[in-house]
């Protein structure tokens, strides 16, 4: 499944700087109600050990967020946020162009602003909860390719 990079712009001392970031649309759902799917636009972050998402998604999907296991996420420069882990369903769906990819794994919901080193406040897709389930190719600046992990069989 192919995803484009997303262009964002910032202004530094009146100078316009354009950046391309690996932001992808994905679906999240509560495994207890698979029909209610929300579609955040999150940063695919190969160095984040966990996946975490703004708490409003968890509330909208019916989670009692603070009942999850609380862990601390540390970022660059010592920034830290608390997240509450829950089992979440994730689906990648590019409008029928490819077969959907689905998984269920632990994802953190956070009430904190994400660390300033992350140009995202919606969702960070890290190893636990996302990357460990897929083969991912970053072909900057053209595309990001996400595939199911190959299973090799030896006879």
């Amino acid at each position, binding site marked *: 499944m192919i995803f484009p990079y997303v262009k964002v712009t910032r202004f530094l001392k009146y100078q316009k700087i354009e950046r391309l970031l690996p932001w992808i649309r994905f679906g999240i759902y509560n495994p207890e109600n698979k029909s209610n799917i929300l579609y955040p636009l999150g940063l695919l972050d190969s160095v984040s050990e966990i996946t975490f998402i703004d708490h409003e998604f968890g509330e909208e999907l019916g989670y009692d967020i603070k009942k999850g296991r609380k862990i601390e996420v540390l970022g660059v420069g010592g920034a830290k946020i608390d997240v509450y882990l829950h089992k979440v369903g994730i689906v990648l769906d590019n409008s029928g162009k490819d077969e959907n990819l689905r998984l269920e794994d632990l994802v953190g919901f956070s009430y904190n602003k994400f660390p300033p*080193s992350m140009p995202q406040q919606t969702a960070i897709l890290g190893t636990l909860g996302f990357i460990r389930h897929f083969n991912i190719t970053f072909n900057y600046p053209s595309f990001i390719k996400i595939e199911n992990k190959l299973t090799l069989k030896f006879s």
Partner: protein
Amino acid sequence: MTDLSKILKKHKTGWLALTPNNEKLIAKGKTLKEVLKYAKKKGVDKPTLLKTPSIDNYFIG
């Protein structure tokens, strides 16, 4: 490539709902619930949802 630069330049706080192909802004609001409601009123059941980011920093992990 998807170009969100113009949308993000105009909307610096709150939540945004985009079309499923991420190309057009459908709704904005202070909460996720609010933008979901506005998007549904406009006939988009599966919008892409984005909390406006801080893009004034370079990302190093």
